[in-house]
């Protein structure tokens, strides 16, 4: 961490001066340090700087703030990666409006192979499960999972990657020292340990509403492709898909129930040309350089065949087997299980309890049941 960092940090906090303007200023002044020390007369000569911008550049408090940020950066062990650094992610450098500076907690390499998983904050059990599953499968094959640490799909994707021992990156809409939403504090800590938490916002920046669409461009910017797992018509994750298109990335979408409001966005994306994903293969085969041999091994756990092999599984009663055969990874209501298995409702209830205790079946609110992975 050099003294120089302070000037870069300061530059990134100047309101109204994004990457395009910063680039131009660098051309004119040579370095952020020179800009820091520039005088008002010099700045007035620059045609694209408004009076407000000049005030900000000259502002003493902002410079003091930059010093404070450096302290926080040291305290939390935050890495500051400038766009000129070798360690700045290649994929991100090439987008239209890359951040001048990114703050990183954890580890980041310049050539990460990554896929983004985004979706609704109010996801259903279906969406959350698929996100966790797909992200887990992707991460297991050495591909980094990128997402936004939000509730719902983002969290499930991060969890999925962590569960399978892979890498995941969370891109925040606030300073890298702030956990938003607060319930994800613990998740954020774990991601720092086995991946990275990234932000273009200086420490202490609150999670303002306007920050989130902007950070979405970084989510897609870091990735080779963006998978929208579950999104309603107006979901913010659709913005990320937009950015992906602009940046020339692949857009994947997981289909959902035609009746489900939570899948209206994703189904629409598919209609408009996003690649449909029903299996992790659908994602992996679009990526160059991924060892496809991996795919020929182990099918994912969507087993639906008869489970009668008593050698492999613990002994189940005939009734339990009848019920297991009705279940899949999709939640099913208990009344339907009763009809499909032919058992009356009290037998279904008691057998499901046994299967839950044995760890084979998972119950979800609404008296819905599905096979546990």
């Amino acid at each position, binding site marked *: 961490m050099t003294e120089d960092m302070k000037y870069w940090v300061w530059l990134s906090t100047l309101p109204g001066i994004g990457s395009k303007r910063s680039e131009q200023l660098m051309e004119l002044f040579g370095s952020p340090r020179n800009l820091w020390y520039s005088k008002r007369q010099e700045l007035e000569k620059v045609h694209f700087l408004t009076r407000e911008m000049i005030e900000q550049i000259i502002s003493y408090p902002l410079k003091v703030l930059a010093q404070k940020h450096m302290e926080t950066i040291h305290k939390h062990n935050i890495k500051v990666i400038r766009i000129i650094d070798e360690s700045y992610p290649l994929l991100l450098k090439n987008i239209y409006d890359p951040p001048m500076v990114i703050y990183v907690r954890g580890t980041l390499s310049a050539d990460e192979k990554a896929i983004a998983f985004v979706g609704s904050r109010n996801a259903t*059990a279906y969406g959350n499960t698929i996100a966790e599953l797909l992200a887990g499968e992707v991460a297991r094959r050495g591909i980094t999972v990128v997402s936004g640490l939000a509730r719902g799909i983002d969290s499930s994707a991060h969890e999925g990657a962590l569960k399978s021992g892979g890498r995941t990156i969370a891109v925040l809409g606030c300073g890298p020292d702030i956990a938003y939403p607060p319930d994800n504090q613990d998740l954020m800590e774990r991601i720092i340990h086995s991946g990275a938490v990234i932000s273009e916002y200086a420490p202490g920046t609150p999670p303002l509403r306007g920050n989130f669409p902007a950070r979405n461009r970084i989510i897609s910017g870091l990735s080779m492709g963006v998978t929208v797992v579950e999104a309603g018509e107006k979901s913010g994750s659709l913005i990320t898909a937009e950015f992906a298109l602009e940046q020339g990335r692949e857009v994947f979408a997981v289909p959902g129930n035609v009746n489900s409001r939570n899948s209206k966005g994703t189904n629409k994306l598919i209609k408009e040309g996003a690649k449909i994903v029903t299996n992790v293969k659908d994602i992996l085969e679009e990526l160059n350089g991924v060892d496809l041999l991996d795919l020929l091994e182990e099918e994912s756990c969507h087993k639906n065949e008869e489970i009668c092999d008593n050698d492999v599984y613990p002994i189940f009663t005939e009734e339990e087997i009848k019920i297991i055969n009705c279940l899949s990874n999709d939640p099913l209501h208990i009344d339907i299980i009763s009809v499909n298995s032919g058992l009356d409702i009290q037998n279904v209830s008691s057998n499901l309890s046994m299967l839950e205790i044995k760890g084979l079946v998972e119950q979800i609110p609404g008296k819905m049941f599905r096979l546990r992975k």
Partner: protein
Amino acid sequence: MLSKVKSCGLLGINGYVVEVETDISSGIPSFEIVGLGDVAVKESKERVRAAIRNTGLEFPAKRITINLAPANLRKEGSSFDLAAAVGIMAATNQIFNTMLDKYMFIGELSLNGEVKPVRGVLPMAMCALKNGIEYLIINHENADEAAIVKGISVLPVKNLQEVVEHLNGEREIWAHFTDTDAVFNENKVYDVDFADVKGQNNVKRALEIAASGSHNCILIGSPGSGKTMLARRLPTILPALSFEEAMEVTKIHSIAGLLPLRTPLITYRPFRSPHHTISATSLVGGGKNPKPGEVSLAHYGVLFLDEIPEFSKEALEVLRQPLEDGMVTISRLNASIQYPAQVMLVCAANPCKCGNLLDESKMCTCTPKQIQQYLGRLSGPLLDRIDIHIEVASVKYNELCNIKEEEKSSSIRSRVSKARKIQLERYKGLSIYSNSQLQPAMIERFCKIDEKGRRLMKDAFEKLGLSARAHHRILKVSRTIADIDGSEDIKPCHLAEAIQYRSLDRFFGSNLKKHW
């Protein structure tokens, strides 16, 4: 001159004999009624005076004092009018009858002398019988109800004239007859049936268990899922009221003035569904002139509290005691009144504030915090009273078109009745009648489980995140499931099914975080 005439007052749901003493002495003409009467009793004077005059009889211009004994109990209402009029006429010898002490007079008087009906006649008739009264004089509209009681002669009258003529031997009045057996055994057909609800087998099974053991339960489901529809049908699978039970239910409705016209006896289980804005007093009973509350009107039936999180804390707090004791005790000056309140409590709630959490076709717009808070605020003491948690899913359209025959209430009811009989046998001599009433000490004795069962419970608690309060409840419910199954012992399958009815412990309110 002094005369004594009998009437009847009400304390709680029982009647007590009121001696109407009339004293007429010389002095400045006045008319006083004493004996802690309320405003209606005080106004009685005007009605009595006008009724007597308009019947063509003489109202004495003397000093009249009427005492309603016992004088330390509050007297309410207008039902003493008739007795007061008779008392005055007896004291002035306009009525000459030596058997007045065998009569009881109940009725309000109109200014023109007509006798009007009153409430609470059934308990009054029962009181009359208990106290050796032979003839009950009452308005003919009240006659059906009064004549349910056998052993006294109910003489219906229309006006004061008839009463006077009868007492003077000038008019014969025939005793009214109500065919009590016929009324009681009349085809008790409810206008709703479990078969009206398509599918929802899980809910129906849960309600069958609740009915069999009289377990309080809660229905959780999105709006339109059918919670209210199913709750309304619960009385149809409860066993029929016995005659004594029917009498009690009728008494309560009678004193509340809620006995429907031409219904001398209520033979169906009550279903009360108060709105969530109800006050504590209306829910439990009381008020200045104490009246039974909803919980008493639901006695031997179902008290349905829809939208339970919306009820005021106060209302739910006062409900605790009656649910515990099976009765409501109201203290008043000089007296303590008791109203019975043995009810089956059924609560209903949405799963979250917007209601859509369990509805697959709609989107839930609540934040996770809101979801946690909504059911999370149901108080511990209230939840302690609820043995069975039932999740009601929104029925999908294609399931509504299912042609399969749905089971009728009468068929479910016969299973429920059988299970109830087993409980009555088992608890004979003890002061309880159903599994839901088992206290912890009794659970030890009556809900024994074997080694396999114990292991199952242990595993269930460890793996499924059940709360400590669930343990006894699961045992009680298992006992009921075993009873329905006709099994003396509680088998592991009974326990396993009972475990399915603890959704609140596992999924809602403060536990929701784990699963989302």
